[in-house]
């Protein structure tokens, strides 16, 4: 890896955060001049050698370019001479290391501002905080590079034009804004998880680690990191060589990443010690219990069912209730699980909700109600949106 590539990977996010703060949150201009600084480095470092402190050189260069840009906006086509001046290191423009962490945190909150569209938040976070290139992000979202560039440009213009503040939100806004940051990182993770693309999962975990370092006293931040670590530890077992997804029940547990599970469990413990647990902490605790079980049969279902009950209080979405019913079905018998699903059965909006029918089918089969089970399986298969889902259902149906 060349010095330039290393600087791009290691320093870009910090340089961008520093410049954005200095420009009072003008992310559009900051992104442009940081990009220009890297272009200048490609020429200069080749000719004059790599500077002692690449990050400081890049910050200085980007800042000068920003000043030039602003000056030129005021005085059209003047000051062309300034551009030709060689760059020397300016101590005054060095990273302010003390504020660097604040700047990175501010960048994360800015990129995840709820005034931006959810897809824009994810793309901007991957670009400006994680430092991914546009082609990498385009691949992650199965989009063209042009479309991704447009999405990013539009998002940065919105940050600048609407004057989204470049700062960590004040206490009264923090819960709502932090929830958005956590959600964005979680969605980035699931983007990779669904297709079992490890690189995107790794980026999400890196972001969660960064956030956990910057906000070590927020239980939900630690909860998210723990959840991602424990879940990602199963990556190798989650997909067969032919690409078919393997359910938790059928996974080869010897292929789980024990070190990652242990790390996740340790982070979870820290989160629990802080108290005030939210949905991510509870989900991490559920994932950790699954990971601790040597076999599917040996899973601690009563405790998992209890955690799902807690999660259902925090998050009233039907998917949580369904997972709770499945867990209760194992902990207290299929009939008890079915009783919980009955709450959802009454809601006509869920008539065509596939996961509900799939869960009901399996619980009915285990309760020994063959006719009702067959009908529920048929509905679930008809509503399945992928071949993999259908195959899994048929295998579950034909089990004894």
């Amino acid at each position, binding site marked *: 890896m060349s010095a330039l590539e290393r600087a791009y990977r290691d320093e870009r996010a910090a340089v961008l955060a520093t410049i954005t703060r200095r420009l009072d*949150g003008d992310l559009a201009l900051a992104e442009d001049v940081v990009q220009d600084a890297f272009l200048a480095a490609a020429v200069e470092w080749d000719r004059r050698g790599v500077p002692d402190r690449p990050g400081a050189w890049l910050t200085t260069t980007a800042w000068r370019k920003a000043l030039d840009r602003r000056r030129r906006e005021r005085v059209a086509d003047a000051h062309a001479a300034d551009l030709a001046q060689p760059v020397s290191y300016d101590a005054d423009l060095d990273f302010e290391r003390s504020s660097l962490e604040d700047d990175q945190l501010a960048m994360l909150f800015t990129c995840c*501002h709820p*005034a931006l569209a959810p897809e824009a938040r994810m793309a901007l976070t991957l670009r400006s905080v994680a430092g991914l290139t546009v082609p990498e992000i385009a691949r992650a979202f199965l989009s063209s590079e042009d479309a991704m560039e447009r999405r990013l440009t539009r998002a940065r213009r919105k940050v600048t*034009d*609407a*004057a*989204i*503040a470049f700062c960590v939100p004040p206490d009264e806004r923090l819960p709502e804004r932090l929830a958005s940051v956590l959600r964005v990182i979680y969605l980035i993770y699931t983007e990779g998880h669904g297709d079992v693309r490890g690189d995107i999962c790794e980026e999400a975990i890196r972001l969660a680690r960064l956030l956990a370092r910057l906000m070590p006293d927020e239980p939900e931040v630690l909860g998210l990191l723990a959840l991602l670590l424990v879940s990602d530890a199963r990556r190798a077992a989650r997909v067969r060589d032919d690409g078919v997804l393997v359910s938790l029940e059928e996974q080869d547990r010897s292929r789980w990443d024990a070190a990652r599970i242990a790390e996740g469990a340790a982070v979870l413990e820290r989160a629990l010690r802080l108290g005030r647990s939210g949905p991510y902490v509870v989900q991490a605790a559920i994932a950790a219990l699954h990971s601790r079980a040597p076999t599917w049969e040996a899973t601690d279902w009563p405790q998992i069912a209890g955690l799902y009950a807690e999660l259902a209080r925090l998050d009233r979405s039907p998917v949580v209730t369904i997972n709770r019913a499945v867990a209760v079905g194992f902990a207290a018998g299929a009939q008890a699980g079915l009783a919980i699903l009955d709450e959802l059965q009454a809601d006509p909006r869920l008539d065509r909700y596939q996961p509900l029918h799939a869960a009901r089918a399996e619980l009915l089969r285990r309760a020994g109600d063959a006719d009702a089970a067959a009908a529920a399986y048929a509905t679930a298969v008809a509503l399945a949106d992928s071949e993999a889902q259908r195959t899994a259902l048929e295998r579950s149906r034909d089990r004894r």
Partner: protein
Amino acid sequence: MQYLLLLTYRPEDNTQEGTPEFDAEMKRWGELNEEMRQAGIWVGAAGLKPDATTTVRAPSGEPVVTDGPYAETKEVLFSFYVIDVEDLDAAIAWAEKTPAVKYGSVTIYPMDGLELT
């Protein structure tokens, strides 16, 4: 930074004039206006008559004047504010204080160019 707040309501679920709810809401608007002036962020505001709008276009040079747009859209524009605040979060905080967020919406436009005084 100046922002234009455009306030809309849904005709079907607006509070009816003459009810205690209506009076309470009017009182709330009055308090909010006062609060904005006290905070020094008030630039301008007005209620609008959404049923009496007129549109002017001149696509080929000749002005064409038409009645409307009619309130066929689900959300009817009925009022606006212009406020001068630090950033978007501050504008959002003021928008949240308007009764309109409960039964309609507030759209925030950052203003460009000519600053109002």
